[in-house]
């Protein structure tokens, strides 16, 4: 079971992200327990972070913080989804969030980064050397930014052992962790409906369009964050 038929009236760009990142962002928002009035921080302003923000808004989130270190990505997220941007090269995101949420923390955190999280030189080195499977930087920030009784939702890919998982703090704060690969088929029909009704416009995140022949360039600019690259779509 799998492929979903899409109506001719919707262009390819409007429905393509049903294949992965839109259901991933939606599952992340559901796993975070987001509902009307929720506050959330999303770590990573890449495509999954943006889809998470779009879905969080649709589910009624009132306050969305977004963390990244590429200003162009934070600017887009602020302009498109009204997030409060935080650049982690400038401040400690969790500290800033605590200060801005009545010294309590947000209801939920979404880790849309995964195992190659930056921000800890030693953990990045250890992951590169395969001494650890994953950097724990993003998750420690999630744990620190979320209020007691809150939720940490992890769509970001992790593998093997993680360095420095502060389980004691997670216990002290009584947190819930929900994670894993997206159950794409579960959400495709509902999300297609939201696209049809105009509630979701995933295509706005596309920044580059190119023919398949140029795919190597697409990978390069996406990897290097060049040319304000957000999402690359390839056609034959």
């Amino acid at each position: 079971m799998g492929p979903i038929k899409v109506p001719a009236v919707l262009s390819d760009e409007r429905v393509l992200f049903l294949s992965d990142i839109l259901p991933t962002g939606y599952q992340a928002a559901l796993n975070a327990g987001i509902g009307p009035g929720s506050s959330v921080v999303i770590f990573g302003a890449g495509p999954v972070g943006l889809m998470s923000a779009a879905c969080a808004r649709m589910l009624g989130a009132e306050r969305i913080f977004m963390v990244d270190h590429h200003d162009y990505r934070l600017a887009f997220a602020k302009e498109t989804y009204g997030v409060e941007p935080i650049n982690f090269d400038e401040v400690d995101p969790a500290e800033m969030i605590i200060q801005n949420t009545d010294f309590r923390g947000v209801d939920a955190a979404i880790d849309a980064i995964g195992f190659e999280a930056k921000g800890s030189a030693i953990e990045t080195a250890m992951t590169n050397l395969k001494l650890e499977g994953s950097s724990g930087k993003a998750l420690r920030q999630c744990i620190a930014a979320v209020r007691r009784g809150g939720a940490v939702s992890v769509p970001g890919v992790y593998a093997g052992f993680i360095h420095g998982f502060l389980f004691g703090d997670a216990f002290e704060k009584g947190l819930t962790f929900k994670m894993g690969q997206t159950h794409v088929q579960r959400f495709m029909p509902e999300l297609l409906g939201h696209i049809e009704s105009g509630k979701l416009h995933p295509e706005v995140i596309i920044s580059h369009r190119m023919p398949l022949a140029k795919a190597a360039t697409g990978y390069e600019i996406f990897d290097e964050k060049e040319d304000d690259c957000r999402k690359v779509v390839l056609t034959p």
Partner: protein
Amino acid sequence: MRALTYQGSHDVRVETVPDPVLQAPDDVILKITATAICGSDLHLYRGKVPAMKSGDILGHEFMGIVVDAGREVTRIKKGDRVVVPFTISCGDCFFCNKQLFSACETTNPNRGAIVNKKDIRPGAAMFGYTHLYGGIP
């Protein structure tokens, strides 16, 4: 057909590969009209994920037109325009019946990325995500 193949860390190339053919009665052949690069493709691109082989075709966010379908395909037909989920699930196993489609236990002949496996069955196969997840295509 033309496809993007992995040749090594930071080395991907569009090459000509054999056209797909129907192999099983529930197979479908799709003419892809659009595809995108995923952040998780970058883990592969950077050489961070084991079990990639030179020549492996990348890509798991795609859609297109059905150009051929095996005789057991009932839900879609030639000419349909479809979007394909990156997770490959059977729809009727212990996990699919719980709507946990990425945990489907029938589609992945490999082990996935689990470390402390203790003999559990693998989760769903995925398009374009190494020989841990089916080596698909």
